[in-house]
């Protein structure tokens, strides 16, 4: 019996590999297995080669594996692009006739995927045939896969759902009768981690639950998924979703709505966020709460639009001109995305600052089964809001020990709200007085930062007695967790918040380590530099990957065992 399986379904854009993969992941999850699924796709609408890979096990899994035990390829290019990804002893299923493949290599088997799809109604059903084949080779029976098909296509009408179900059943029956050996079969146990969510979806659900009522963005991969999910629920939760004409509009709309008293946010990726930077600075000087999700992809400029990176840590830490306090959250899982969204709104409003959530394509678009810790989620905290009828004597921007002065909501607070992007006095009018400038800078930078430092999210620390400690932020949480469980004498420290930086917690967790390494999806080792800058501790090295793909468990284990 295998402990886990890794299944890849691959084809060109438009083949429906994501739908097939999602149905398979759901079938596994509903069978009581734990799943972790990644998407690898090109920046095009049709053609090319994409894959969706599902890893399933009877225990929780948090990261992708390098090689697949079962690969189902839907066209010739998929065969060529994916044949080296087959694990030893694995099975590679293809349609030799349709793909024009003459010689089957060891471990390859041909199935009439397109002929079966044609019988079910046409070539567009090939992905459901692939699902049926995968179910035959890995599931106890057809039931969970059949339910997943019904669910996937429910919104498209019964004809489409029935056609896909027939196609999946044809694939299933064919494979049961004709494909030898079902060595991949696993048995699951019922568990409570029953939600199947990607990071973007979890982040969006966190945003909705936090009471965001105005979401605006300009579409940009891989951040658009957040807007899609918020838009799906906008009607039910009373949210206005507005597609902006550009990112300058998006950030200024988010600030405008927030100034008027509504929880509002925007999101983008590197290039779009670059356009928003002046708006970040605007939120800071007007002390308007602002939440932005930055879902990283490789740059510079357009870079790899559909792939992953952690290249914008330095950028987000410093984005926006001038000096001011900010908070930067770096969730490491869909659960943490949900919680980070809620916390970001509370932080933004309580401290009247920009709160940024830094995610990446890999985290945003990888699916895993989770349990949402509802009890741990913070309730909405709006911070100090001026409620009396008269003007506050000290003004909207009154000096205070923690730098935070009560907000005035136009049309709701009674007093008049005055905000200016120019330097201003406590009452909100433009000033050029040196002493006011100094006090306002202290308010926005030093005092707020000191208050924020009192409630930094503590890093997640595993096995701090280990000789080797890995350090990472954001999406590397899962791969570090599994690698440190697999390798002797390795532990990890994971940051879910990188600003203000938890320096004391870092030094405490790493005091016993012989060797500190960072694990980062970038070329410069930006986290290692940040740690050194903030604590004086210099990591001995970094495990870096910057080819646009996420770390696999195999890579991190190899790096640990090989002694980086």
């Amino acid at each position, binding site marked *: 019996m295998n402990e886990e399986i890794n299944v890849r379904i691959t084809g060109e854009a438009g083949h429906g590999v994501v739908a097939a993969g999602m149905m398979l992941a759901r079938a596994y999850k509903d069978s009581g297995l734990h799943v972790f699924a990644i998407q690898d796709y090109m920046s095009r609408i049709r053609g090319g080669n994409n894959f969706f890979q599902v890893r399933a096990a009877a225990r929780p899994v948090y990261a992708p594996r390098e090689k697949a035990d079962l690969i189902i390829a839907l066209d010739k290019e998929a065969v060529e692009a994916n044949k080296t990804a087959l694990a030893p002893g694995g099975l590679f299923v293809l349609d030799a006739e349709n793909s024009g493949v003459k010689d089957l290599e060891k471990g390859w088997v041909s199935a009439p995927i397109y002929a079966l799809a044609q019988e079910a109604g046409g070539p567009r059903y090939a992905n459901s045939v692939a699902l049926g084949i995968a179910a035959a080779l890995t599931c106890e029976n057809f039931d969970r896969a059949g339910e997943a098909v019904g669910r996937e296509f429910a919104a498209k009408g019964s004809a489409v759902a029935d056609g896909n179900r027939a196609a999946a059943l044809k694939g299933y029956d064919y494979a049961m009768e004709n494909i030898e050996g079902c060595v991949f079969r696993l048995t699951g146990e019922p568990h409570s981690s029953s939600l199947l969510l990607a990071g973007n979806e979890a982040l969006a*659900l966190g945003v909705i639950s936090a009471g965001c009522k105005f979401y605006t963005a300009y579409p940009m991969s891989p951040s658009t998924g957040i807007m899609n999910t918020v838009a799906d629920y906008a009607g039910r939760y*009373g949210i*206005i979703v507005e597609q902006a004409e550009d990112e300058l509009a998006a950030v200024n709309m988010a600030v405008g709505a927030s100034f*008027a008293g*509504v929880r509002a946010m925007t999101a983008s990726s590197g290039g779009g966020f670059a356009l928003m930077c002046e708006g970040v600075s605007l939120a800071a000087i007007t002390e308007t709460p602002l939440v932005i999700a930055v879902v990283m992809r490789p740059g510079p400029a357009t870079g790899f639009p559909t792939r992953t990176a952690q290249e914008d840590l330095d950028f987000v830490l410093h984005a926006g001109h001038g000096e001011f306090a900010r908070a930067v959250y770096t969730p490491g899982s869909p659960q943490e995305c949900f919680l980070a969204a809620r916390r970001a709104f509370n932080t933004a409003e309580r401290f009247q600052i920009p709160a940024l959530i830094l995610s990446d394509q890999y985290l945003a678009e990888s699916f895993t089964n989770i349990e949402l810790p509802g009890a741990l989620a913070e309730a909405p905290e709006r911070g100090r809001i001026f409620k009396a009828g008269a003007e506050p004597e000290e003004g909207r921007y009154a000096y205070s020990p923690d730098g935070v002065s009560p907000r005035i909501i136009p049309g709701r607070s*009674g007093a008049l709200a005055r905000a200016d992007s120019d330097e201003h006095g406590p009452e909100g009018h433009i000033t050029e007085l040196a002493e006011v400038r100094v006090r306002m800078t202290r308010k926005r930078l030093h005092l707020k930062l000191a208050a924020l430092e009192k409630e930094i999210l503590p890093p997640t620390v595993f096995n701090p007695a280990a000789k080797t400690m890995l350090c990472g932020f954001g999406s590397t949480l899962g791969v570090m967790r599994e690698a440190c469980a697999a390798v002797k004498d390795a532990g990890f420290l994971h940051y879910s918040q990188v600003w203000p930086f938890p320096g004391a917690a870092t030094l405490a967790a790493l005091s016993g380590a012989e060797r500190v390494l960072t694990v980062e999806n970038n070329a410069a080792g930006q986290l290692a530099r940040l740690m050194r800058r903030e604590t004086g501790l210099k990591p001995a090295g970094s495990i870096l990957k910057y080819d646009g793909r996420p770390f696999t468990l195999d890579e991190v284990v190899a790096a640990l065992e090989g002694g980086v």
Partner: protein
Amino acid sequence: MELKDFDSSDPVAWCGGCGNFGMQAALKTALAKLGKKPQELLLVSGIGQAAKMPHYINTNFFNGLHGRALPAAAAAKIANRELTVIVTTGDGDCYGEGGNHFLHNIRRNVDMTVIVHDNQIYGLTKGQASPTSEPGMKTKIQPGGVILSPFPPLETALALGCGFVARGYAAEKEHLAELILAGIAHKGFSLIDVFQPCRSFNKLNTFEWYAQRVYKVGPEHDPADKAAALALAAERERLPIGVIYNSAKPSYEELSGLDGMKPLVDADLNSIDIGPALADFR
């Protein structure tokens, strides 16, 4: 309300004799007639001399970034549709730096009144050409004269389907006050482009220059007649002021469903049940 209800204590930083003073007087007159309290109004601006206007009127205000007044204003209105939102912006702010927002907020059609202080020059940066500068006008940056074609705000707005397009003149204060009131009454994006002589830097388009060319649109003009509006907007020898076009069209608030909702700002954030949404991901 009375004029003094809108008096601000903030000292004015405009040059003596600036066209902005006439516009300030007209805006105050309009607001006093409108009858809304300062607490119910929101003035939004970007950067430039025109963008300082909100400081000189006693109401709520948001003086944001250069070029970005319109997105901030539209979103503030979406957040609280009970506010009366007025944007005070300049030709550089609105037609140059914020040009894309000008185009798309006309399309968006959120209910707000946009007053453009169009002095055909950059004042605060000390005398460079603006999008509406006349070709041939010499500046420090354009010593051989402006060679770019001027941006036509009225024709652009009409082409985009703007429901309310007007032009005023800073020296015609009462007339301008009436235009502002008509713009506020129009539900949707209302554009009022206002000739505003800049005494310090625009030596071409002076009070005298405008006085020779400006004329008031008469009662024979039907503001609902788009072809007639386009013809008026295209005039270059004589310059018509008044309501050029005014025709009802569905606003953002109507089309988005906002009008049927409680103002977003009044939403109860403590009673949100995310459970039903989560159930979709089981």
